[in-house]
């Protein structure tokens, strides 16, 4: 008899724990998380910011927004350009980014909280330096260059590190250089 009472009690406890857990999962699901989105389709075309005989600085503005239901903190963000020497070896490239609304010049991303529907604009800069000393000559034959933007974001849940890709196409570079 006692064994049935014990089993009955354990089943009740298990059921209560299960109900609490399910209720919590539903609550968490409804509460949601951040959803920081980098809107690559809305980025501006690359423009020449500065040019000298051996170097050109290009920039583009890329908006981002928090579409999620919770605050999102961008803890870090940085670009990674992908142009292997096997593909093109005429220029040396540096890339860095900053928040266009609070520009920094050290490549450091200051962690910031973005509320729901709040965002800002990334200003991405590419510095190309000619190996031969003549940037216009060395950029002839420049291929499409992907640039991954890595960002570490945290909201209500564990942080995530994501990357979003944009591409500096040969045609876009040509148009920018012509202007």
């Amino acid at each position: 008899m006692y064994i049935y009472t014990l089993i009955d009690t354990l089943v009740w406890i298990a059921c209560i724990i299960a109900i609490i857990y399910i209720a919590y999962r539903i609550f968490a699901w409804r509460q949601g998380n951040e959803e920081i989105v980098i809107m690559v389709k809305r980025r501006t075309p690359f423009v020449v910011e500065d040019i000298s005989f051996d170097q050109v600085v290009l920039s583009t503005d890329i908006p981002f927004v928090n579409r999620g239901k919770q605050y999102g903190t961008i803890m870090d963000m940085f670009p990674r350009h992908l142009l292997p020497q096997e593909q093109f070896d005429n220029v040396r490239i540096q890339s860095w980014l900053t928040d266009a609304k609070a520009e920094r010049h050290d490549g450091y991303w200051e962690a910031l909280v973005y509320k729901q529907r709040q965002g800002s604009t990334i200003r991405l800069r590419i510095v190309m330096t000619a190996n031969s000393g003549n940037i216009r000559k060395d950029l002839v034959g420049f291929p499409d260059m992907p640039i991954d933007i890595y960002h570490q974001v945290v909201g209500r849940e564990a942080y995530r590190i994501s990357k979003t890709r944009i591409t500096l196409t040969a045609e876009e570079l040509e148009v920018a250089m012509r202007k």
Partner: protein
Amino acid sequence: MAELELLPIPTRILTNKDDIVEAIVEFAGPYIGPEDIVCVAESVVAITQGEFTRPEDLKVSWQAKFLNRFIHPDGSMASVYGMQAAMDKEGEWKMMFAFFCGAVAKVFKKSGVFYQMARTASLTDDVTGTMPPFDKCIVYGPKQPHAVADAIMKATGAYGACVADVNDLKRAAILGHSRGLKPQQIAQILIDNPFGNDSQMTPIVVIKNYASVSKRRV
């Protein structure tokens, strides 16, 4: 007649390699008189004491994942890492207990019980809470703030010293102070946040002429 004056003192970035008392003497020493009170931002005291951690270094427990969901988004405990950092200091089960006590107290319209019971939770600043390079760190409250305030007072020859927690939301609290000071009065003087919480780099504020003004008011 001398009047109260708040004098923010700029410094370089202070790190865990600095001694807060020596830094105050170095940067604020010439501006401090015997009638003055030296106030220092609590987060900077904590940083010089090495009281910070990176979210990446924390192992998040299920308790932190559970509790952080119930905290207002403006609070440092709303992130799992802020919550876990506080739990590492206070203990997971103590924080759970404090939370449930706080929840019960809220039913009876008493707020703030969670933060009273889990003191670390109220003193911990989540990422973005301080200026670079510690903006990517979780900064705890300072250790032994009263002793720090006493040491500052002795080293500078000031009338008094305090460790203050002030923000731009018109909230000010004195975490530690030298003997004889009235913490609530000083908190009121600092309510407009003369430290600045962003990149102003003024973690020290000297309240000039405090002694003579307070005597006059008495």
